[in-house]
């Protein structure tokens, strides 16, 4: 029975779910984000500033109903199946090969472990990646907000102190995107070391850099951004635009001092020169993809090679397992060849296309967690074949009662991706805009010889291996040729990257084609 306001007097004991902006969003910072609880944010893209521009502070929701499940028993069976067959045995914990460096601790927390913290997980998750600490500092923070100040804190104090946790909490209090703050923090420090930024300098900034690594420095830095005080007004525009205001953008993008390779956004650290599916997916889209689906191909072999071990599984086995799951391009193992010889090929174009389609539907629409999906290689099962391909539709169909196949989901993802490109086209996109910052083309990705450490699968002398990708940059002309391959694969016109009418009609997007036609932005053919 649902109790009405008459019965409850408008009160409830339910905990509201709140999505809010902080002071940064209120002042329309491009670095502002939407924050939910702790450790959850819509970060990139300045959503916080958009809400601030609309005078929207928060959305608060109290659930009053339930989520209807078509097949609750089927959903529970799916969960138990995933847990029993594919998840770690919690009674016999051991490091699995393609796991994220072991699972005895939260997966996604990068400040030092604390003895009085316990694992926390989102409802329904069979793994968990957060923690709650006894002192309440940094509870449930994950990922970049835990990396934001951990390094600076440790470097100053020789060990982790509360400065890292306080800085992470301050990021969320002010509502500032962690990546922008992290990149900006080190950028302004470099400028201070160059002698151009600081109190009374060419770029006048009141921060006391002798306090770098202390909690008060982080608070002062973030406060400048949030309140747009003095130079904070530049910071609040994002450091890409700040650099332009300071007359430094061109030079710093050329040298790489400003590590903003695509669309005015900071590097996610999976360098476009090395892990190309990340860089290509980002520049062919509109934002840092932030989708870690293929990162295990870097993490595991790289750590093993650094430690002098031969990575297992062998590269050929790894790529063949994954390639078998890349419907509709299944079986093309060359999609996973990251060597320089293959990085501009149609095979790589197919990998990028697969990635965009998979994430548009199975992750961004169905909202499967990026921490756990896709599950390509799973060392908890014989043969190492993960549950991707079977798992995605199994959970989805149990909830919805639909009979969607994995491939049908991929086709829906393709439809969404094409709709996105149509929107960008209407907004004025042309292939000439799709280019990286200069340093991606001109400066080799650091590391060479015996210390090259970025390893991914690739062919070397015709044989599969984990090849080292340091020391290379992207060839400008070859990347342009790659774009042509990609546009052709996707059914977009290669001259401008605009969707073709025939492609849109195949995807039942005839109305979209019409809209583009009216604006003279429809790709011919």
């Amino acid at each position, binding site marked *: 029975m649902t109790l009405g306001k008459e019965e409850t007097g408008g009160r409830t004991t339910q905990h509201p779910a709140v999505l809010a902006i902080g002071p940064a969003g209120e002042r329309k910072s491009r670095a502002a984000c939407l924050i939910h609880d702790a450790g959850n944010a819509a970060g990139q893209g300045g959503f916080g500033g958009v809400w601030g521009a609309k005078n929207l502070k928060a959305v608060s929701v109290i659930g009053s109903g339930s989520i209807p499940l078509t097949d609750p028993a089927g959903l529970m069976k799916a969960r138990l199946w995933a847990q029993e067959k594919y998840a770690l045995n919690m009674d016999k914990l051991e490091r699995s090969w393609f796991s994220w460096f072991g699972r005895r601790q939260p997966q996604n927390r990068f400040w030092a472990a604390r003895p009085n913290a316990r694992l926390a997980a989102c409802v329904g998750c069979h793994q968990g990646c957060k923690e709650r600490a006894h002192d309440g500092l940094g509870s449930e923070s994950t990922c970049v907000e835990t990396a934001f100040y951990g390094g600076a804190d440790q470097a100053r104090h020789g*060990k982790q102190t509360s400065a890292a946790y306080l800085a992470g909490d301050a990021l969320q209090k002010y509502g500032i995107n962690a990546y922008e703050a992290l990149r900006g923090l080190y950028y302004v420090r470099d400028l201070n070391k160059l002698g151009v930024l600081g109190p009374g300098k060419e770029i006048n900034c009141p921060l006391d850099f002798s306090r770098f690594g202390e909690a008060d420095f982080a608070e002062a830095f973030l406060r400048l951004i949030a309140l747009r005080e003095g130079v904070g007004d530049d910071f609040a525009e994002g450091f890409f635009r700040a650099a332009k205001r300071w007359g430094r953008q061109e030079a710093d993008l050329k040298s790489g001092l400003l590590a903003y390779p695509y669309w005015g956004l900071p590097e996610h*650290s*999976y360098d476009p020169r090395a892990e190309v599916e990340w860089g290509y997916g980002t520049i062919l889209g509109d934002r840092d993809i932030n989708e870690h689906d293929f990162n295990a191909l870097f993490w595991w072999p790289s*750590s093993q090679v*650094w430690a*002098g071990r031969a990575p297992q599984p062998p590269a050929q086995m790894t790529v063949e397992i994954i390639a078998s799951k890349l419907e509709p391009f299944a079986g093309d193992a060359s999609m996973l060849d990251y060597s320089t010889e293959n990085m501009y090929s149609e095979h790589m174009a197919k990998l990028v296309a697969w990635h965009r389609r998979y994430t548009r539907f199975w992750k961004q629409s169905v909202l499967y967690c990026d921490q756990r999906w896709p599950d390509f290689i799973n060392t908890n099962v014989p043969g190492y074949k993960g549950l991707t391909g079977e798992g995605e539709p199994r959970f989805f169909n149990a909830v919805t009662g639909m009979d969607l196949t994995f491939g049908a989901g991929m086709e829906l993802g393709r439809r969404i991706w094409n709709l996105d490109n149509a929107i960008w086209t209407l907004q004025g996109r042309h292939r000439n805009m799709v280019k990286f910052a200069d340093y991606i083309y001109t400066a080799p990705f650091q*590391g060479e*010889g015996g*210390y090259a450490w970025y390893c991914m699968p690739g062919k070397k002398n015709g044989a599969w291996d984990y090849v080292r990708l340091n020391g290379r940059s992207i060839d400008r002309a070859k990347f342009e040729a790659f774009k042509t391959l990609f546009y052709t694969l996707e059914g977009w016109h290669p001259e401008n990257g605009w969707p073709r009418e025939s492609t849109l009609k195949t995807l039942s997007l005839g109305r979209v084609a019409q809209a583009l036609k009216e604006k003279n932005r429809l790709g011919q053919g």
Partner: protein
Amino acid sequence: MAAKVLSEVGFEHRLVGYRLSPRTGPMAVPMYSLKEVASLLAGPHPRMDLDALADWVAAALIDEDLAKAMRAALKKGKHNEDRTRRVHDLIALRLDQCRRLTGAPAEVS
């Protein structure tokens, strides 16, 4: 020399290493002091050119003895993880020596 080893260098001697963290990825870490280098190398997954580091110690910190010891340690290292640990231990020892000499606060890295 001890004060020099403990000091921060200018932008022209900036070193860049990487701190690897799953999800956030390999984060470039600009460093301006031996203390920062020690902190990076003490972490779970640091990456940098250790030969270049030894050169930097000689050129920027003018500590030829430490650089020589590092190069010898690198030759003995079985793999990069081992080399990293050996070099870190040498650096930590040097920092400790210098702190004692200068009376700077003791820290653990």
